């Protein structure tokens, strides 16, 4: 994908911010916005990879992959680039893995307005340092994604949500690789995928009843806790927790998590190395976003 125009727009001086569809907070206010290229460059089902502009809507990507029976493990809404640089996973993370595992290669534009390639186009690659993982979740503070190559995954032949009032620990112990296990302190929801007969057998063995997924997921706060701490959520307010993962969709924001000083120092140095003048998404402090 030709990124020269995008790189020129970003330039090498002055504050600049990246804008998408503003579903995850939007660009920095009062700063000159740029938008990443839009469009799907190619889909290669036999490689299980897809290449698109970072500004491509996730829905458009999903529709293009659906035609090949595949999908990408990034959550819906907004742009592909936005989903990546925010890095929040969807409700199926237990089965599909985190967002950070999907990005194979990107051409991004750095603070000097140069186009930089990180990663490689194949599904397996250990050539050099893993800058892709650094960029996922970086909130546009180290560079702006131009195009991306993502790992796809096959869509399941069959999927079904179930529910039970058994405690989630005993449910999880009985299931083989559920795609999602959610718990609100009282009920447990389970998403199973695969061959229809296997799904039904698993559900019967664990005494699960067919159900819709929970329709009222709290949006007040997105907590990230060790999965072993999820039982302690009882009494903290209304929540839906992702069992085995540790994401909690809560009615209240998470209290600030402590940051070890060496970690803060590494962040300061990384920002300085990648953007010494602090011109990319100025004012965004990734340590304060927790």
């Amino acid at each position, binding site marked *: 994908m030709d990124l020269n125009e995008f790189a020129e727009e970003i330039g090498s001086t002055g504050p600049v911010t990246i804008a998408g569809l503003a579903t995850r907070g939007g660009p920095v206010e009062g700063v000159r916005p740029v938008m990443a290229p839009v469009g799907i460059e190619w889909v*290669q089902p036999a*490689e299980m990879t897809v290449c698109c502009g970072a500004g491509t809507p996730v829905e458009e990507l999903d529709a293009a992959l659906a035609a090949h029976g595949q999908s990408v493990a990034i959550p819906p809404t907004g742009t592909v680039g936005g989903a990546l640089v925010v890095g929040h*996973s969807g409700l199926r993370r237990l089965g599909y893995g985190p967002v950070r595992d999907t990005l194979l290669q990107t051409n991004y534009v750095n603070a000097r307005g140069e186009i*930089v390639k990180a990663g490689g186009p194949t599904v*397996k690659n250990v050539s050099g340092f893993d800058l892709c993982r*650094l960029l996922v979740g970086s909130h546009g503070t180290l560079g702006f994604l131009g195009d991306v190559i993502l790992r796809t995954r096959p869509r399941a032949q069959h999927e079904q949500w179930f529910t039970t009032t058994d405690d989630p620990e005993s449910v999880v112990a009985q299931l083989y690789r559920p795609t999602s296990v959610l718990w609100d302190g009282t009920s447990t929801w389970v998403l199973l995928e695969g061959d229809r007969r*296997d799904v039904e057998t698993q559900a019967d063995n664990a005494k699960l009843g067919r159900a819709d997924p929970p329709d009222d997921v709290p949006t007040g706060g997105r907590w990230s806790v060790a*999965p072993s701490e999820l039982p302690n959520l009882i009494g903290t307010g209304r929540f839906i927790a992702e069992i085995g993962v540790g994401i909690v969709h809560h009615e209240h924001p998470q209290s600030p998590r402590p940051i070890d000083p060496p970690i803060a120092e590494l962040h300061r140095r990384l920002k300085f190395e990648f953007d010494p003048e602090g011109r990319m998404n100025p004012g965004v402090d990734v340590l304060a976003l927790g």
Partner: protein
Amino acid sequence: MGSLIQDLTVELGSERVRSGPSELSLYRKDASNMEGSTAVVCLPETTAEVQSCVRIANRHGVAFVPRGSGTGLSGGAVPLDGAVVIATTRMDQILSVDQLNRLAWVQPGLLNLDLSNRLQHLGLHFAPDPSSQQTCSIGGNVANNAGGPHCLADGVTASHILAVQVVLPDGTVTTLAGEEPEPVGYDLRGCFVGSEGMLGVATAVCVRLTQNPPGVMTMLLDFASVEDGAETVSGIIAAGMVPAAVEMMDQLCLQAVEAYIHADLPVDSAAALLVEVVGLPHGLAADVDRIVAIAHEHNVKTVRVAQNEDERALLWKGRKSAFGAIARIKPNYYLHDTVVPRTKLPEVLAKIYEIADRYELQVLNVFHAGDGNLHPLLVYDAREPGTIERVRLAGEEIVRVSVEAGGVLSGEHGIGLEKRDYMPLMFSEIDLAAQRSLRCAFDPLGVANPGKVLPSPASCGDIHSVPEGVWI
């Protein structure tokens, strides 16, 4: 301040600070064919001792090299210019296991297979399974972002590491990420995995554990042409299946292995695929049927489905015995590791045969076909004059054709010393500068395993000049 060795001995005791000629000779190389030099080898047993080793090395102005079992194939653990070797082999404990949430904290020197074997009774395992899994360590797996046959479905090491406690190059101890899924800030753990000991020393690792599958089916499919085999691989993936493993062996490899283990392998065929699928009974049976049907579309000669655990073990033994088998052909081998798009496998394999012919070398191919991860084995006799140079040149051409086909330099062995100077085949000077920036942020003085991965040494800006208000 005493001498380097004296200071280290005060901290670790003389038994765990080694500087005798036989040890220095042993630790100046890894499993690659490269060697360097070390002044002293340290065998710490705790995080605090690793920290002491790093601080003492810093104080004496000597670089250090973290080392696991030394099974790396790209020279990543080869010490250069008398660097201090910090070997984590004595840090080999499982610290804790959370069976319900399927994670464990382990020390870096724990061997890969020991971890899985010791979790067997819980129905769990550590998914990455490099061929060296009996001897390679978890710390080494983290450093190289190790793979293995079963990484096709489950992903390489990076997907299985939740957190790493590290001693940073300046001697600071901290933990990158944690058991929680979305730690605050940048994914420092993600950067650390695969950083080949250049961002610090791992002293404890939180690994994700994988459920053992309820059912396994393993089959061997053989073909009259490499193309038919490779197209079967692409066909399986395009049909929406990701088997647990898809391995390919070419004819020379089949013949060498058959002579070695007598497993009734199809020695008259150009290539064979070892395909393993796992899961629940109905899905498993359906996958086997679909894979066999796809193989028939691509002219499969015979389909052999392992009928029991013994036969399954025998088929895998065939795959895993390749390295032993080739010793019967020639005394030395050079194993390469590149990745190409799956659809380019036939084209690149044809070029590899042509390159080997041209340099008058024998090449065997046994590799992770499912993810396009080639492992050409050049077999040779180092005693024959001029052979080593031909092996080197042939290897370089193999790397070039892989990258030209849209591939990458390494799939699971890493860059180390071996491929450091090939990095410009894949990355521009600007791309490499970005990688150097990451290195500089962690190690501005360049004391952690210098001279690896990046083709020109890092020269970092003065980090102390970073203004306080850099975030604004």
